[in-house]
């Protein structure tokens, strides 16, 4: 094994350990701020794995989107709702943990089996390193043109929707009739089912000949 290979192997081991330990920490630590920072660490380590695979563009995208945007957003959200609140203990928490652990372990076993029994015979095209960015650009404007253009519609619509849902409203009346409105469903809130007085459907059904 040459020096280059062993260095690469060591880097791979270190990054994988960082991903695994970080991910366990994200799930298991009780303090959500630690979890959020560890999540950032996991994203960084995954970016390192992409670099090892010669996929520098994907690594950069991972850094910018996951570490730069998603993780910072999560931290902002935690800061904004930083309210001390004692949560009631969930009944049967131990059983739930064991159950969900069993489900996850089962899924892991299934994935491992699939991974090891499948002959991944096709290695795919060889890695082209720095040329990947150019190749991605070519793909975006040739065989991935339609999804690329559709993604612009998706982003535009998501932005408009986010603004509509988040903004303070400038008008509070029906534009046609001028009545006051409350931006709620037209079907007004119902009393809970058991308190409903004129529960008329049941008698009718019973009277059916």
């Amino acid at each position, binding site marked *: 094994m040459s020096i280059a290979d062993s260095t690469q192997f060591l880097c791979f081991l270190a990054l994988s350990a960082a991903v695994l330990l970080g991910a366990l920490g994200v799930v298991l630590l009780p303090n959500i701020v630690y979890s959020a920072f560890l999540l950032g660490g996991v994203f960084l380590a995954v970016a390192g794995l992409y670099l090892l695979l010669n996929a520098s563009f994907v690594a950069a995208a991972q850094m910018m989107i996951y570490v730069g945007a998603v993780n910072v957003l999560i931290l902002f959200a935690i800061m904004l709702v930083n309210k001390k609140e004692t949560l009631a203990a969930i009944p049967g928490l131990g059983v739930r943990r064991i159950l969900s652990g069993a489900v996850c372990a089962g899924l892991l076993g*299934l*994935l491992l*089996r*699939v991974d090891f*029994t*499948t002959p*991944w*015979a*096709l290695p*795919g*095209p060889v890695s082209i390193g720095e040329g990947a960015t150019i*190749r991605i650009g*070519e*793909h975006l*404007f*040739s*065989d*991935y*043109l*339609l*999804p690329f*253009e*559709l*993604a*612009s*519609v*998706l982003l*535009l*619509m*998501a*932005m*408009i*929707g986010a*603004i*509509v*849902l988040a903004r303070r*409203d400038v*008008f509070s*009346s*029906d*534009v*046609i*009739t001028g009545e006051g*409105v*409350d*931006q*709620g*469903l*037209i*079907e*007004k809130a*119902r009393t809970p*089912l058991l308190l*409903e007085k*004129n*529960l*008329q*459907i049941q008698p009718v*059904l019973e009277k*059916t000949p």
Partner: protein
Amino acid sequence: MTLQAALEPVLALPAFLALAHSFPTSSLLAAAGASPAASPEALPAITALQINAGAIAPEAAVLVAMLACLLVDLAGEKAASRWVPPICYAGLGASLVLLALQWNAPLQPAFLGSFLPDNLSIAFRGVVASSTLLSLLISWRYVERSGTPVGEYAAILLAATLGAMVLCGSTDLVTIFVSLETLSVASYLLAGYMKRDARSSEASLKYLLVGSAAAAVFLYGASLLYGLTGGSTSLDAVALALQTATTPVAALALVFVLATVAFKIAAVPFHQWTPDVYEGSPTPVVAFLSVGSKAAGFALALRILVGCFEGFQEQWKLLFTVLAILSMVLGNIVALAQTSMKRMLAYSSIGQAGFVMIGLVCGTKDGFAAMVLYMAAYLFMNLGAFACIILFSLRTGSDRISDYAGLYQKDPLITLGLSLCLLSLGGIPPMLGFFAKIYLFFAGWADHQYLLVVVGLVTSVVSIYYYISVIKMMVVKEPQEASDVVKAYPPITWAVEGMQPLRAALITCVVITAVGGILSNPVFSWASTAVTGTPMLQRAITLASATSLS
């Protein structure tokens, strides 16, 4: 929203169109060089692939209408409520006309194989576009009455339509995912559109969480399929790779993809989101979700399961049989206990999806044709029912079934329309729904799916029971037994702007539902042309008949 945000895509549009029309395909592929199939003997096939942007002309019409809605909306709420409806009618009408022109045209893959405008996709895109058109017709008054912005509402609904339409014709994993997300994200936004209402926000949040999980599962399945092909995302390559694939990985990919499809069509046990989302979303949005979104889900199911997983037919047909039986039984039985009209229609739509799955499981020509026919029939009868309950809630502010008591004396139109649509949903002759359902059961019986057909028949009877109890509630009650809401029923007026489109949509749906059954021969031939004009389905049918003979 800002001016810049609205203008940006408009500025990008001409460039996109110019690109689409004069695209030097072959030269670019030559420049790309090492594309996987660029061996010399494959070259003619590659150069024969054109951009063929005309294939998405119907989607382009929807896109133009969406951008025009956003632009008009900049001029204020008054201008929006005046101009957005005609813009939407024009866009969707143009889209439907363009779809009709594509019907039976010589088949050419578009966008280098990411999109295929075959007859199947045209039929489903037509269903999606019509469902949007009808949902918009019944939504203007509802949206204005609740005081939410009309322009953005129409734009987001049109974006959802665009996503659903592209999904119906896409033949590439990346296109499928992006269009699925366009549809889903737009649906989450629309579900939470009544933002001051806690129920609407809850619906949106639930839909977002469950939908994101489903999207992640789909991505995992798609990445496994991508790994199997060794570097191609086209569904043809996936189908080829799956023929020689080993079982575990392909089975896992099948389960993941199937879970997403089942989520989209709300099949039991992937249905938990449906009742809460349907109850909390604005009613016109529910109308779109129950027809348009579901049609796109079925198109996706056909495209992936029938087109790609041919070698795993037994497995996925077994899974879908289980899903169909569960959906029919649970959807129709739980619907019996509902007191809210929207929740009842939610469970009924789960049951209806179960009926449509019979056609999918058959895999014969009749089965596919019956699916297409049932979706088309379901479009009119379900939207007709929704038009009626929207009109009722606009007048009374209620959607409780018990509040419909004695309605026929105050509002004969709603009573008649709702009765006809519900009878048709239950499958009572001579409505449109009866013929569609009998065709489905006939196809299932001919393909020896006896269990499915028997379960379908029994649950149809159950569904007739709860549909008829609503009708009984409206018609049989004496005036003094009428509910308080009906006793205080407001005088009927159609003068307010936005009520006339609602009336037009209601009457159209009800007339088609009532008369369509008798005049259904053209619809039958249309549905079977949709199947014969689709090479993918033809291949599956030949394969199925060959295996049944041997």
